[in-house]
């Protein structure tokens, strides 16, 4: 029998000498997209049990908020563990060893867009008879902030009755004036909220959900003749917005959402107007009314929510 041309030890040795693997930019060597999405989500701790995140319940007691940095090595070990599935011999080990830098850079690059991908995957049920508008619009806020992938990730854990009562509260993190990309914002349970941001923020702001801003009537209202607890909407309407529609009345009655800021107070660039009565009178001039025309905006509550908070009407600073 003649000598074989190639033997297994020689093949392994050849691989050791020239260990190059198929580059991941080559379509045949690239990670399948399902795997990429799973690993990106895993790096943002999707699917990780709560006991692994907070080992001792005393670390997150009731009515508390905790801020932290994310340990990148810990999440890298998660990815290493997933890639250990099916790793039976040296061939798979070489493959992983040499693809490791490419894997890390691929996942780092995919991290900021993971939230957008998951949001697009959530099915939207269009309302009856109305065509969807604005689906192709992308939000400007989540693209703002640092584009340095693989950088520091920070976040918070909030356990409070506020999460169960207002589950859709608005959370934004700012470094100076720029908003940081929100990598993940989810309720881990009905009372615990987890948020992850790309970068180190100076302030984190929590606001009541804008769709749930409620109406406040403190005094000076009149009641129904028949029942003293029932507010006379007609009188309110005639005194506040006599010739407008329901939206104008809503704006007049809106109570600015409370904004809780953790960290440094924002530096307001708008001209400070601390005279409250002037501000409420000015509300009448802020909006224009277009009656019943859904194609055009009726009211632009143009940033007055931010202004009210900056003037201290709704915003509190807690450090």
């Amino acid at each position, binding site marked *: 029998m003649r000598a074989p041309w190639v033997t297994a030890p020689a093949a392994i040795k050849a691989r050791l000498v020239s260990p190059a693997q*198929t580059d991941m930019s*080559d379509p*045949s060597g690239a990670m399948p997209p399902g*795997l990429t999405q799973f690993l990106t989500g895993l790096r943002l701790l999707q*699917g*990780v049990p709560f006991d692994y995140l*907070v080992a*001792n319940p*005393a*670390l997150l007691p009731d*009515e508390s908020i905790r801020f*932290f*940095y*994310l340990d990148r*090595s*810990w999440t890298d*070990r998660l*990815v*290493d*563990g*997933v*890639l250990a*599935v*099916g790793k039976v011999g040296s061939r798979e080990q070489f*493959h992983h*060893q040499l693809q490791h830098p490419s894997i890390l850079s691929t996942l780092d690059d995919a991290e900021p867009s993971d939230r957008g991908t998951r*949001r697009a995957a*959530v*099915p*939207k049920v269009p*309302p*009856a*008879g109305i065509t969807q508008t604005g689906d192709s619009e992308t939000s*400007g806020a*989540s693209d703002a902030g640092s584009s340095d992938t693989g950088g520091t990730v920070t976040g918070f854990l909030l356990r409070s*009755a506020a999460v169960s009562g207002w589950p*859709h*509260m608005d959370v934004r993190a700012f470094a100076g004036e720029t908003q940081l990309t929100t990598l993940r*914002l989810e309720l881990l349970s009905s009372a615990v909220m987890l948020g992850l941001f790309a970068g180190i923020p100076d302030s984190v702001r929590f606001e009541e*959900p*804008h*769709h749930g801003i*409620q109406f*406040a009537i403190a005094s000076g*209202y009149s*009641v*129904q003749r028949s029942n003293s607890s*029932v507010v*006379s*909407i*007609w009188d309110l309407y005639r005194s506040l917005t006599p010739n407008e*529609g*329901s939206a104008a*009345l*809503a704006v007049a009655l809106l109570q600015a959402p*409370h904004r809780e800021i953790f960290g440094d107070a924002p530096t307001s660039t708008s001209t400070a107007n601390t005279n409250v009565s002037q501000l409420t009178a000015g509300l009448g001039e802020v909006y224009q009314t277009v009656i*019943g025309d859904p194609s055009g905006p009726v*009211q632009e*509550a143009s940033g007055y*929510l931010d202004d009210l908070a900056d003037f201290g009407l709704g915003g509190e600073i807690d450090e």
Partner: protein
Amino acid sequence: MPAPGFMRLYDFYEPGLEDGGYSVQVHSSIAATQTAEQAVPTPIIGMMETPATFGGLDLGSASTYLQVVGPRFSLAATDIAGVYPPRNGHGAFGANLAQVVLFRRTLPWERRLGATIPSSVSQPQSLQSAPIPWMFLLVLDQDTEIAPGALNASATLADLPDGGVSLSDTPSTVRCGLLNVDTALLTSILPSLVELKLLSHVRQVNVDDRTLDAGSSDGWFSVVVANRLPAEGGTYRACLISLEGPVSALLTAAPTAGVAPPEAMSPPSGGGTTPVIVLYSWTFTNDGTGTYKQLMESLDSRELGSVPAGSPAAALDTGHVVLELDDRSGATGSALYRGPFVPTPLGRDSLGPYHSADQARRVSIETSLEDVSYAAAFELGRLLGAANARVAQDLLRWRRESYSTKLRSDTVSDLGQKPPSGLLENLPTPPQRPVPTVAKAGILAAIRNPRSVQRADPSGLSTVEGAPGLNPAKLASAWTALGVTRSVAAQALGQEVVTGGPVIDPLGPVEAVTSVDDVLADTASQEALTDVRTSMLEGET
């Protein structure tokens, strides 16, 4: 979508189709007109010109019926985007009107109430075009105004007495929530039709900065507001009711002017009860410190891993937690564990990929305890990956494709190179087995035409004799016929010509064998066969 921090409000959002039955009729017809450019003169003499217009072809019509059905007697919990005050909330809600926020922007205007506002009632221009919503948020004191058993969450339409708007087009087994409310109280709370228009509106907000399930909406919400303020210390139930049914008889069109709020006045009662259809309800208490502002302001805020002064330390100063560990030999001990959340920024481990959890174990020098954080993370990743069948398949497929691509490229590059030395020289030659030619010819002839074999021909001479040009007698007769005699041939060749005589077969004629004994007695043939066989085996030609 409005920019973050902005909100747009609308008076109403008219649905494309209101609830009800519709008939759709489609009629098609074709008509054509020829333009001047398209006109082509006909060359055939005597034929009339083609007409400039084509009269029209009626393709007939088709009709169908469709029913638009929206929520009418109940609302799914998934239709509700949020409520205020929060469900089972305890807080200072005394100055706030209750409200319910719905995901569908057209929902309050999808049904048309039978009632209309007469033209005698003056409304401002902006309100006149608004449709009347069919929902209203009714706030009642849970203890004093709702009798026990008055709220039936799983009643059927059969329990609703006929009155007002007829509900006869719906089967009476449809489930709904029913609430029996005191008629006088209900009349005092219900707004007029004009005020009803003011209590519903539409909002459009930017949903990018909130959790994903809220982000599943497109930013459009419709809001229904109540008109009653809760008193201090009471538990209230807010019910989103439908204004169809017996309650529609209590609605008035014109608004009445209000009065300044007097001191506490008990609500009116008496006069029987009216059932109302309840779409959704929740309770809250106007007491305590449960508003958003109070809750958020009272939060204890610090970094993860640090505990308030005075409480027992839950973690070490590095954020590690001491856990009990059962090691492989069964002994129990302590180990340190820290999750992915750390109080100080850490560098990224650059020791490359780990191939097993044991590689990731560390020892803490100060406490001499083992740090299993990264090993635990590795094992968790492995379990999560293995539990997800799709991930495992993707991994295997990725590796397999990677290997096959690499193998292909390796083979291609190797083929381009010279094969190792000595390969071609050492190739062994295949063995040669020569076969006698004459015997081969006889065998071939026997194979081609078995009947032509008259007798055994061990020497092959009869085959030669039969070949043309090799039979001497025939040759001689052929030459004689051509006039070539012996003397002429001798003169041409220059020597004496010798013709062969008949070939003498050394074996003699062979009789046909008829029995085995004859074969066995024919020793001469057997010897000849043995000779041929030996020569074939030894390779002699």
